[in-house]
């Protein structure tokens, strides 16, 4: 089947029109005998390291169907109709990188004896494919906090080794004699040649050489037998002509090659479940190809290491992460799969382990679901929950979707509503009043708390009050940390604090009291 692709085009076509790929009857063939079940549904997870800069990420306002995507969401705004954006996900006050990463697919960091949700789904959907699941990443292990390097855990709760080299993945999936008949023929020739050689050496060899050659020949023979048995039962796909990715010149090429491979592996039904980390959760990666010289983790602490230059660099990196999400979606849409695209038959989970990347709050963490999953998800929506939601509830809902029913997961017992047509009215935010009361040097304000969206003001919080300018909060790190302002961002609060005037406007300079209108208090324990 001559579907040789031009590699440059294959790898670099994201910006252009969709790739006119020939339709391959592969899925129908695989689904034969089960045609009524329709195409297989895939589950794909893309993890973004080091949280986000909330003012650039958050959607402040809007409704379920009428909302404006935030500045950081612009790279994938064109996929709006395929997205389900969830807000107020995650319910931990402060969190370590390792714990927040564990929660991403395991629901709770203490859920250490169970498989992560991707693995439970793979158990359900991965049967009969060459790879039950693929666990992929971008960089090496971070041994200082080993949990930063993994999101997928096996049924004992042990981390699953990840692979990061696109060439290696390509070779394993598409060039293995296991599934590639031309590779198998080649291996057969090699086996014939070497055993011929070994036998002729053996004729003149002494006892010790002879012993070695006998051992060698027995390995050759068992390899031959194995090849024969594979040939008899093989589940081949004609990919021999697919070009192998080149060694990447930079991180961007490496990640794009991997995203290409992931899409291809999903499309060819080599696997139905993939997790891919764009970096360890506290990645020290240097994005030199973006002109950034500082380590990502250093920059992600944008409050402590504040400078406009640092923030710009951080946002460049974050935008790049968003572009990779777009790249994946675009690629998945480009593959025709039955009467739709690969994306239509997939559920893609994109997000990070923490929200505010300086404060390490694990609330309002970025979570987006993409793809209809063959009707499992209702997309094109922005769903804001009133209270911060446990990730375990989202996982429980995903398990239910994939018919991998669990009564509970990671201490959560009820699935998160609102992912499809189900009613989630009780979880919606109720209307509330906003007001300002000033007293003797103090001020009390009720309204929605948010970070300033002026990038020069990364340390400034605002409370929106209806009918008047927002009240500024300009406090020291101590207050920011002790009252965990970042935790409450995006939710209505009542704050009392010392006030001074700047440019005729009141500014809270010290927080004395903070109450959440609907939500909980931030967890005091490290989570």
């Amino acid at each position, binding site marked *: 089947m001559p579907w040789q692709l031009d590699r440059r085009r294959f790898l670099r076509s994201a910006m252009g029109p969709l790739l006119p790929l020939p339709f391959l009857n592969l899925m129908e063939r695989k689904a034969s005998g089960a045609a009524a079940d329709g195409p297989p549904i895939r589950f794909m997870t893309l993890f973004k390291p080091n949280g986000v800069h909330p003012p650039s990420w958050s959607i402040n306002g809007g409704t379920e169907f009428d909302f404006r995507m935030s500045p950081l969401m612009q790279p994938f705004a064109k996929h709006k109709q395929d997205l389900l954006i969830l807000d107020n996900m995650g319910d931990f006050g402060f969190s370590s990188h390792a714990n927040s990463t564990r929660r991403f697919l395991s629901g709770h960091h203490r859920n250490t004896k169970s498989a992560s949700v991707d693995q439970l789904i793979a158990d359900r959907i991965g049967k009969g494919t060459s790879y039950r699941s693929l666990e992929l990443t*971008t*960089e*090496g*292990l*971070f*041994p*200082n*906090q080993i949990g930063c*390097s993994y999101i997928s855990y096996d049924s004992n709760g042990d981390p699953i080794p990840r692979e*990061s*080299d*696109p*060439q*290696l993945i390509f*070779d394993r999936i598409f*060039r293995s004699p296991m599934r590639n008949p031309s590779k198998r023929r*080649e*291996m057969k*020739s*090699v086996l014939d*040649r*070497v055993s*011929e*050689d*070994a036998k*002729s*050496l053996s004729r003149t*060899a*002494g*006892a*010790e*050489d*002879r012993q*070695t*050659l006998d*051992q*060698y020949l027995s*390995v*050759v023979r*068992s*390899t031959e037998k*194995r090849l024969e048995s594979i040939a008899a039962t093989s589940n081949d796909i004609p990919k021999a002509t697919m070009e192998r990715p*080149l*060694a*990447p010149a*930079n*991180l961007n090429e*490496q990640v794009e090659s991997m995203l290409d491979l992931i899409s291809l592996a999903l499309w060819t039904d080599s696997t139905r479940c993939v997790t891919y980390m764009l*970096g*360890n959760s506290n*990645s*020290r*990666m*240097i994005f030199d190809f973006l002109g950034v*010289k*500082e*380590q990502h983790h*250093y920059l992600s602490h944008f409050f402590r*290491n504040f400078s406009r230059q*640092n923030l710009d660099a951080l946002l460049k990196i974050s935008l790049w992460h968003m572009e990779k999400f777009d790249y994946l979606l675009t690629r998945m849409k480009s593959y025709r799969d039955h009467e739709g695209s690969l994306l239509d038959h997939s559920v893609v989970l994109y997000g990070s382990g923490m929200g505010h990347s300086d404060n390490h709050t694990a609330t309002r963490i970025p979570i987006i679901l993409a793809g209809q999953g063959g009707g499992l998800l209702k997309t094109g929506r922005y769903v804001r929950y009133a209270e911060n939601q446990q990730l375990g509830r989202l996982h429980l809902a995903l398990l239910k979707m994939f018919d991998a029913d669990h009564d509970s997961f990671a201490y959560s017992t009820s699935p998160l509503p609102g992912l499809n047509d189900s009613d989630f009215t009780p979880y919606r935010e109720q209307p509330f009043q906003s007001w300002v009361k000033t007293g003797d040097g103090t001020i009390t304000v009720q309204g929605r708390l948010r970070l300033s969206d002026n990038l020069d003001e990364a340390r400034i919080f605002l409370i929106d009050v209806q009918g008047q300018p927002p009240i500024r909060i300009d406090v020291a790190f101590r207050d920011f940390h002790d009252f965990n302002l970042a935790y409450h961002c995006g939710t209505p609060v009542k704050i009392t604090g010392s006030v001074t005037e700047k440019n005729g406007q009141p500014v809270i300079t010290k927080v004395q009291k903070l109450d959440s209108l609907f939500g909980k208090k931030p967890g005091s324990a490290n989570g």
Partner: protein
Amino acid sequence: MVLGVRLPISESFAGNAHDKDNTQNKDNTQDETDSDTPAGFSNAVTKSYQTSVQPLLKKHCFQCHGDGDEVHGEVNFQKIETEQQIKVAFELWSDVLEVIDSGTMPPETEPRLTSTEIALYKAWYQRELVDTIQSLPDVLRPRRLSAHEYRQTLRTLLGFELEVSIVEAEQTIVEKSLVMKLLPVDPPGPSGFKNDTSANPLTTNVWEQYSFLIDDALAQWLSIEGRENLERITGPVVGEHLTSTQCEKLLKWTLRRAYRRPPAAETMATSLAVLDGKRGAELESALRIELKSVLMSPPFIYRSLLATVDDIEIVSGQVGSTFSYGRVDDHELAERLSYFLWGDMPDDRLMRLADEGKLRDPDVYASETARMLADPKSQNLANNFGVEWFSLNEISKVSNNPPVSHALRQQPIDFLNYLFTEGRPLLELLDSKVTFVNPHTAKFYPGDRKRMAAYRKQRGIEVEAVPNQRLELISTPERGGLLTMPGVLAMNKGPVMRGTWMLERVMGEHLPDPPANVGQVKPNQPGENLTFRERFELHRSNSTCAVCHNKIDPLGFAMQAYDAGGNYRPSGVVNGNKRKPKNNKKQPQDTNNSATAKTVDTSGRLPSGEIFDDYAGLQEILVKSQRHTVIENIVKRTLSYALARELTIHDMPTVADISSKLDRDGNLAVQEGTYHDLIRLVVNSLPFTHAQTQSPKHD
């Protein structure tokens, strides 16, 4: 005695400390009268064992070291009967000599050997295990390349490294080498070194990984992107494909290098025939499969497979049998030299000298050895030999922070590289005024760190790995030599592990595992105020324990002025072998021990009688009165690594000879032997340059 064989080993090969006076001048031709008891191949050995030694063992040792209820210390004399078993156990016999001589065995509660019995044993030992042991090389034995050697060989052959193609970030661990990533980790062989793959056979799994690697290698080698590299062999490539002349050239080039010797004409012809009559893409595909076959064939993946010996001398052995040995051929010698010094295949120059038959010329051989030691590839000695000898990979577990554990581990490696490649005196291993540090390890050298070149972290970098700088130690008297490096101190937790490690790795002792039922050291009971050392000494005071602990403890406790993290705390809170309090790292160490106020007792007495106050005193003993033991161990380890096999009794004359040459009989007036001298002696030794021929095949 062996007939007609002249050995390089002469005068003082039996330089055994215990019996120097009895050492005979050993000229092998003198013993023709003993020709019915040739070296190591005599039933007379068994006979003399049965008449003089076995009765002693039965009387004094079988109770604990025989087939009694329990076998102590993994020593069972009752299992030793045949000549072969007697010879293989040669290190055991030397241990026996030592323990009966020093009186550590039989235990105090049992009757001692009489002086007549001791003399009887000594005489037997000297006769059967020293005097009549002939120096013999091993049989030519093929050996699979270790993963590391395979990696280096493939890189040298291809001209590039097979690397995992990912971008690296600071503070993470990545195996960049595709070979090291895919091949199973080599377990250390019987010699203790990973290049000894004798117990690590080819498996189908390894075969598949080889296949995967070679596919990857050839894809790159023959790719359009890799043309520049390939054209150095084939000449300029015009158009898309190689011409048939170029294919032939490349195949010939590869065969010779992959086999590490010129292939037989027949092999070459068979190989080239594969290309016949093909063109363009078909030709290139045939070439690729043939290249893969070559790189998957036995002569590539096994060392010594096609080696031969010449100048063969026939030696008479047991009644009715003979054995023979001779010089290994030039290419085998090149390979031995190259894998020893570089862990890599011979380079073109070495190959050419072997082709021309010049390598065995003593002058050429000497200058090549010197050239190779001066080459950066000799870093292999520290990176592999040194690391495995001193188990330096353990240091990686000391810290979770990669730049820190890198610094701690790289310090001894850079130091060993300095000793090996700059030809420093042997005992600078223990006593040196030079070390290698970086900002992560500088705090251990407070007196000298100010002379280090300044280091400034770039903005936005949190922690990073930094290369070491060489530092002369002037004001840090508590450091110097391998044993006081922070990583080395920290990788062994507590005095027992430190002592055991020193005894095994530095003094060359073999210790059995402790019995399983030893239990824990008891904490201080109410009212007691004992130091850990005092409590430990109570714990291990019974005589079974004492056999080993009399040797281990003085070494280990001498290091107690250094805490578990390798910091120097001569009077501080030091408590080896502590148990980590759960859930609270900051809790004071070992709260049971109220004796922390006492100054650490680092004094000790070696079984040989020397006493010392602290590590400085011990070090003095190690480099002076115990120097021969240390040097002999250095020689044994080096020879064993060079030969990539466990030493046998027939290597002991070589060890004794090299040790005494390097030690110069302890005469300090003569300049000490250096690592260059050691390497020169090893590569010229009989087992390195010679081999027994293989036995003819039996169908």
